[in-house]
Each structure stands twice: as C-alpha cells, then as structure tokens.
C-alpha cells in the first residue's frame, strides 16, 4: 500500500479526536530541527473551521476492540492500514520542515495488544527524537492497558500525553466500550499525573532532572452519545483538574458514524452544547468558579440561551453591580462580558486614574452585557434598570435564531455579530 493511501486512511480515522492543540513547551533540542512556538500555534484551519496545529494521525486503525461509537471498531468494514515507524517519522519531519505543522499528535487503535501498539508508537517517537533530533511538539496518546514501563517512556519522550476517557460514567463505558474498563483508563492517568508533579518539583531544584510530559496531560469526553447531564460532565472535569492535574479536558460533540442498539439517533453533532461546555470549562479553569455554583440538581444542564457566566449572573443579581474602580481581579472576572484581557486592562489603567464610562469604551471593552452589572464611581450606565427579567429579555437570543439540534451550525454562521462567539467556540473563552 502506498504512503498516500495509508495517510488517507489513517487521517480519516483520526479526525474525530479533538484534543489536538499544541502549547509551547521549553524543550531545548540538542539537534537542529525544531523549536516550539510559545503559546502554541495554528498552521492551518480545515474546512470545519478547526485549527490544524499538529499532524493528527493514527499509527494503525486495525483494532481488536469494538467500541460502539467508533469508526475503527472491529465490526466495521472499512479499509485498514498501519504505518511503519520509519514512514511516520519521515512524514512528520517532512511536514515540519515545510512548516505545515507544529509537531505530531500520535494515537492508535489497539492493534494485537495494548503493549504491542504502545511499543509501535514509542518506536516512532524514539526515531523522531533520537535519529532526527526532532525538537518539535509531540502529543502521544497512551493506550489503555499498556504496561507502566512503556507509558513512562512515552512521558519522557513526549511534550504531552493523554488518555481519552470518552464516556463520562462507568455505566456508559460499560455500555458502549465494554472492553475498556474505567480502571484501565484512570490508573495510567493518575500515575502520570503524580509523576508529572514529582518531576516538576524536582526540576525546581535542578534543571538536570529529565523532562516528563512537560505540557501536562489532557483527555477527551464525547458529548451526546450517552445520557449524562452537563452537570455530571462538568463535575468529572472539575475533579480531573483538581485531583489528576489535568491541563485540559476536551469535549467532542458526538458525530454519529455507526448505528447500533445502544447508540442514540441524532442527525447532527450537538455543537451548541459542546460550545457551552467549553465556556463552562473556562469558568472553572480561569474564572474561579466551581460547578456547583452554576449547575445543580434542579438545573443540571447549561442554558442554551445565555453563556454560563451571564446565566449565573442573572441568577445572582445580589452580587451586582460591581464597582469597576474598586473590585479586585476575581470580582472583575465574574462580570459577564469581562474576560481576562478586559480585567487586565482595567487594573492597569486604574493604577493611574479613576475610570469613567468613556474610558471603558476607549479600552474597547464590549459593554453589551457588562453594562448591566457594573458601576463606575457609583454611577450605573445600563440602558435598563437593574432587574434580572428586563436584562434577560435584552440579552436573550432572538427567537428566530434559537436552534434545534439540526441547524445549530447556522447558529454559528448567520449573524456576523456572533464572530466573538465563534472564535470563543474553540477555547470557550468568555
């Protein structure tokens, strides 16, 4: 089979994984090829509007398992292929030199056995690092069930490692991926998390300590294939951030590729829900929220009409208005429409003067939402009184824009004012 054929098949099989972003790490290569861009870097955007940063590819799509939601499951009749480590390392280096990519995102179906597969992945990365002296970014998928020795070597060679949880609960996992046990996923995650921390501590003392997955670990959850609520999903993410030291949790709207008794029938991926989850994730990671604050037993799902911060604020009018000239950083971040950048600008300017309303405009802070939640030196500037219902009516998405699942894509494409929303769809930034 030609390299081109393999590339086609194995890219096609890899495309559903979304946990694919580079974030610059300081790996100082001894060789002469490669340097990470601090903060990560997109090299292209595919026609679905997603950033291409890494060569996202499977080593092999020949699988011994039969996960219900997956294109590559053993019971599917699809073309199969497997790279040799030489082929894949060569391809990566060629693409890298042309500046198509920032590095490699390597995953695989489980071919023969977890250890066999993991060893193939390692051979590829070893070649890259040792033979090609490749200093670019490598994100390596860990194969659930592979032995700890192999996983450890993976962490030493890669910039980031990850295990995909895919399904948010034990029950769903048992239903749709019966051959993967929660234990085979969580155990390596936990050990890797502990090791990352230990090595970080050591490197604070001496820079000679070897790197171990310096960009941390991440995971992916499929949204909409199983009946979990947003609350269940966010609780899981929160505990992964808190207890397992995860750097990122990615959410992937379920794209139906198979049909099966245990699978829901959906016509298109729940993109709006995915978008809201990313926003909620952002609240947890950067704005100091905990899931309990905005999702509870009674309201276990995120509001589709408002972003989660606005939704929270409307339910907590007692904490507003916030005085822009006095609020501290965490308080500023809780104002709808004020993000990290705006809060930073406010604090900077406050060092030299008391802010007036015009100043906010000059700082180019978008006041569409924020106006209802702030005062400047005691004055309120909102064009509605401080009343949750009135404000809600003002900020609600017009009815004709409200989407059923089927035309959610439109939600992102029709209204040019939604550009900010679209861009934030990638990161969840609010």
């Amino acid at each position: 089979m030609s390299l081109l054929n393999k590339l086609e098949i194995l890219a096609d099989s890899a495309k559903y994984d979304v946990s694919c972003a580079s974030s610059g790490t300081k790996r100082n290569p001894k060789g002469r090829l490669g340097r990470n861009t601090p903060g990560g870097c997109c090299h292209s955007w595919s026609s679905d509007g997603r950033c291409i940063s890494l060569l996202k590819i499977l080593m092999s799509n020949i699988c011994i398992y039969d996960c219900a939601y997956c294109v590559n499951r053993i019971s599917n009749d699809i073309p199969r292929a497997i790279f040799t480590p030489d082929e894949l390392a060569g391809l990566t280096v060629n693409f890298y030199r042309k500046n198509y990519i920032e590095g490699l995102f390597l995953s695989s179906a489980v071919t023969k056995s977890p250890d066999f597969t993991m060893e193939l992945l390692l051979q590829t990365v070893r070649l890259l690092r040792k033979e090609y002296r490749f200093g670019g970014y490598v994100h390596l998928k860990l194969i659930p069930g592979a032995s700890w020795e192999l996983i450890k070597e993976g962490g030493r060679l890669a910039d980031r490692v990850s295990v995909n949880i895919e399904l948010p609960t034990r029950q769903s996992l048992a239903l749709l991926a019966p051959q993967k046990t929660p234990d085979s996923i969580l155990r390596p995650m936990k050990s890797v998390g502990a090791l990352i921390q230990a090595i970080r501590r050591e490197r604070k003392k001496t820079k000679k300590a070897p790197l171990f997955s310096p960009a941390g670990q991440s995971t992916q959850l499929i949204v909409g294939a199983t009946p979990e609520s947003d609350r269940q999903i966010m609780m899981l993410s929160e505990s992964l951030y808190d207890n397992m030291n995860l750097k990122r949790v990615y959410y992937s709207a379920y794209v139906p590729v198979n049909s099966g008794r245990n699978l829901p029938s959906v016509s298109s991926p729940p993109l709006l829900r995915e978008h809201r989850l990313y926003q909620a994730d952002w609240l947890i990671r950067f704005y100091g929220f905990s899931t309990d604050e905005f999702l509870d037993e009674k309201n276990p799902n995120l509001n589709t009409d408002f972003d989660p911060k606005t939704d929270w604020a409307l339910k907590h009018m007692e904490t507003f208005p916030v005085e822009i000239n006095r609020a501290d950083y965490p308080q500023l971040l809780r104002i709808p429409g004020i993000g990290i950048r705006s809060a930073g600008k406010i604090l900077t300017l406050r060092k030299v003067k008391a802010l007036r309303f015009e100043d906010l405009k000059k700082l180019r802070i978008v006041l569409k939402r924020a106006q209802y939640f702030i005062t400047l030196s005691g004055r309120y500037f909102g064009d509605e009184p401080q009343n949750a219902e009135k404000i809600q009516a003002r900020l609600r998405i017009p009815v004709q824009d409200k989407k059923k699942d089927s035309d959610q894509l439109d939600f992102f494409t029709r209204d040019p004012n939604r550009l900010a929303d679209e861009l934030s769809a990638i990161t969840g930034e609010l």
Partner: protein
Amino acid sequence: MSATYIYDGTYEGLMTCLAEVLKKQEEPDDIVFFQDFTPSLFSREVTVETKKRKAESFLLFVKNKMGKDTLRNIMKCFLSDVPGKGMMIYDYVKLGIEKGKNLDLFLSDERVSKIHTLSMRVGREAHRMKGLLRFKELFDGVYYARLYTDHFILPLIAPFFAGRLADRCWIIHDYKRSRAAFYNKRAIRIAQLERENVPLLSSEEIECQMLWKRYFQKIAVPGRYNPRLQRQFIPKKYWRDLVEVEESIVQGKRSAE
C-alpha cells in the same frame, strides 16, 4: 513656518529624526519616509541625515526613561505599514517624556492606545505567519517561502525560523516589498530581492505537497463543515501561497498574475 521632517526609511533614520525634532520647541507637521513624501506649500521640508550614534543614544534614553516595553512598541510600529506612523510614534514618545515609566499604563489616552493597537496588529500578523508560512523545497535544496503581509514582519519572524529550521538554507521573501531574509545555516541577512518567477521545485517537494493536500482534505469532519469559520481564521489575503488551499481557490488568480 513649521516643518515636515524626512528620514531615509531605516529605523536609525527615524530615531535620529525623533531625537532632533524632540529637541525643538515647535511641533512638526509630519515625520515621513522620503518615499512617502509629497511637498506642500505650507510646510518647510527638512531632510534629516541618519546618524547611527545619535539613534543609539536616543534608543537608550527611551529605554531608561520609559522602559523596554515602550521600546518594543516603537519598533513594531516602525515595522507597520500605515500612513502617519512617524507622527504617532512622535506623539507617543513625547507623552513618555512627561509620564516616564507610567507611559504604557495610560491605556485610554489615544496617543498610547493607537500605538498599542498598531503594535499588537504587527505582532499578531507576525505570529500568524509563524504558522501560515509555507516553505517549498527548490531543485537545489534551498527552502523558499513567500509572504504577502500587511506589515514588514521579516525582522520579527526570521530569527524564529533560524531556530526552527536551522539545518537548511532558506529564503523568506516579502513579495510585496521585494525584500527577503536569507539564512545560510549560520546567520540571517535581510536584503533586496526582486519578484521573480516561481522557482523550480524539487521532485520531493511536489510529492510532499500532494501528501499534505490529501491529509488536509481528510482531516475535516464532514458533519461540522463550516467554511465561513475557516475563512474567519485565515483571511483570504493569506491564502495565496498556502499549499493546502491554493489549487482549488487561488489558481485562477495565480495565472492572471
């Protein structure tokens, strides 16, 4: 009569110019690169001769008085391609003499915000091109990439690529400005390079492009097709030398070139 000051287009030139103008009491009418200069009845013209020493001591003065960030902002604005940047930088530095190290805190003052916005735009374009630049391997093994950028970002990205692709000789060609960064595995030199015909590619290059294009088509998820979003991220003006999209979208334009 107040005056328009003309410099030679170099960074040192602009700095010499600023140093001299700021010493005077009267406000200048304009500070321009000689190519952009159009004579006016109402303004005296003064051509400022570039003096390296003077420029250096001025830069040092700015650095000590206002800080490194200010210096970096000035440099990025100098690389920008917008009319009136000379006066913008003048206004900024003049305010800096008054405010010192606090200069960059005055975010709502136009003299500061204009510079910040511009410097951010230049920085953003440079960052973007770190991703969107495409090297093509020529028949003689040299790597060649073309840019069509709004601003003159070569000095910002060349050192980055010297670290990234250190083991090849390469050329990054700013096609609009007929300038290029040349790298010979040791040092970078920026010099004139006229627009030439598309150079001959190596045979490996053609194969590599084919692989990449096919990969690019395969990696998109059909159920999430959203070309409008794609264009938001890569404005059309950057598509020209992008291997993965050039065939389908830009070919018509290319042959008309």
